[in-house]
């Protein structure tokens, strides 16, 4: 029940803002003879939660890494936040937040030390950082864990913290690569609350996942099969189009012909 109410709320936000923040034209990425991304075309709008779905090996992470500037495309035209991926990679990096599949905070440093480090390399002033740190710890209810090593925290806390740290420098676009992998359902729910909150502030969320229930939370979903985008629309329309009760059904129908999937 809760999920539906949130979906309608965000659906309204999407129709009001149609500013393109990510534009991808004919993105191709090859690793030798293997084509990981085969002529991808899509746009992502400001304030939108854009879901990137697909089986393992479908090419989701590859496409996301290219958009973040971690990997270079073989060909195609790409712009992120109005900047060209080929020529303005460093400007893009100032405007994006990224949370990778692999946990990205330093395990051998405390919560506060991690915040200080990431705030420092984004050039956030000491005063601003202290304020942000206070708000962040309060929101995550981690005030007592401030001086604890990251290694000693449970995975769910780590993930929420990593997400908040990726937001420290107020990025316009946030890339999340399977952010809720291995996390319990309650934490996953909380995690999505954070995502909605960020989207409500006008941030664009680009998220990959293979949890089909999470796909329902997205404004629009693209489903990748064998390196191509097999479908792209709102969850509602996709369900209608594929005559399915839920996203799981949609995904199974699309993925049936897959070659690289599980």
């Amino acid at each position: 029940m809760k999920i539906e109410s949130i979906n309608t709320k965000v659906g309204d936000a999407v129709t009001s803002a149609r500013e393109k923040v990510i534009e991808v034209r004919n993105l191709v990425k090859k690793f030798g003879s293997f084509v990981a991304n085969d002529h991808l075309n899509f746009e992502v709008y400001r304030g939108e939660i854009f879901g990137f779905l697909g089986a393992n090996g479908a090419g989701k992470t590859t496409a996301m890494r290219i958009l973040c500037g971690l990997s270079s495309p073989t060909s195609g035209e790409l712009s992120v936040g109005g900047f060209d991926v080929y020529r303005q990679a460093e400007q893009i990096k100032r405007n994006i937040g990224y949370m990778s599949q692999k946990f990205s905070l330093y395990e051998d440093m405390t919560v506060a030390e991690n915040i200080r480090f990431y705030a420092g390399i984004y050039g956030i002033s000491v005063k601003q950082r202290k304020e942000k740190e206070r708000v962040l710890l309060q929101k995550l209810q981690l005030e007592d864990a401030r001086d604890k090593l990251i290694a000693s925290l449970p995975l769910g806390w780590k993930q929420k913290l990593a997400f908040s740290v990726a937001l420290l420098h107020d990025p316009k676009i946030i890339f999340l690569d399977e952010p809720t992998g291995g996390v319990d359902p309650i934490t996953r729910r909380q995690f999505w609350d954070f995502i909605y909150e960020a989207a409500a502030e006008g941030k664009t969320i680009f998220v990959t996942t293979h949890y089909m229930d999470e796909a329902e939370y997205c404004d629009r979903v693209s489903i990748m099969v064998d390196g191509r985008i097999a479908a792209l629309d709102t969850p509602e329309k996709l369900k209608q189009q594929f005559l399915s009760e839920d996203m799981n059904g949609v995904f199974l129908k699309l993925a049936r012909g897959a070659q690289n999937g599980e």
Partner: protein
Amino acid sequence: MRTLRYILQKEFIQVFRNKTMLPMIFVLPLVQMLVLVFAATYDLENVDLYLVNQDQSEASRELVAKFEASPFFRIYDASFDVTDAENSFKKEAADFVLIIPQDFERALVREDEAKVELLINAIDGNKASLIYSYARGILTGFNREIIAEWKSLPEFNPPMQVRVKDTYWFNPELDYKWYMAPGILAILVTIIGMFLSGMNLVREKEMGTIEQLNVTPIKKYQFILGKLLPFLVIALFDLAFGLLIARLVFNLPIVGSLPLLFGFAALYLVGVLGLGLFISTVTETQQQVMFVTFFFMMIFILMGGIFTPVESMPEWAQWLDRINPIYYFMRIMRMVVLKGSGFFDLWQEFVSLLIIGTSFLGLSIWRYRKTS
């Protein structure tokens, strides 16, 4: 600069929180100085001598006594039979066989000339030539005394003797520990610097945290300097610690200027750390870094002139040594510590290290890719 400060802060936190790091920093210099310096010595003592004295005359006994009195030789065993000696020799028990033939004294008296035979185990050529020259020294001394004793009859004018007095500069007691200590210290700072920095960078790759750094606007040179400076500081600290041990334990004289020495060490470290970081930019795991770094380090150390003089290497090897940073640093260490050489004596080494340092560092910054 601010960014670099935050990177350095983070690196130092991690270095000192690493439980294997602190013991490494203190134990490595201690072991190297206290064990390796004593072990890596060319001082020749207690060479096992197998004596075959077939003469048993006064003259032969005198000669044997001379060998016995020498600190270099100790009589391991004796026999009248040369085959016994040869067997012992073949078993690697004796290093050196001295054969005094039966007619030694008679020949000496009658013909003014007698022969002894020396058999030296020459598997280790260096050691063999040392044994030979020590033995020759004893025989020459013996000769001189014989001439003085037997020919000093009134009608005989003793020959004029030119005696050569040797003085050894910079290491008057020919203490090998003084010679080896600066060399071992050079190895020490190389190991500390090259391994730690390279492993550290690759560890970020293994943990995946490097991805997070690569999506930040961090500059490539900032990242590399952030990985280089902490280990440069640690290596310099270990150099100071090692020098202190050498000073206290075997009284190593430090003749030259310490600031000059540390300045050169810092320049040298930029080069080797740069190489270590370069290796880590082209590898993916700590294991790979270890192997590749070890490969380079072995070559650098063995060709660097620590254990064997570079002058006796073939010409092509000496030519190759021009890109070997240890070769220069080794010379600098020995020249500054033992001779007290100043900057102007070492300007060629300075220029070479400067070129090597900027090349390796430049190479690592160039090769570090934020985008794969």
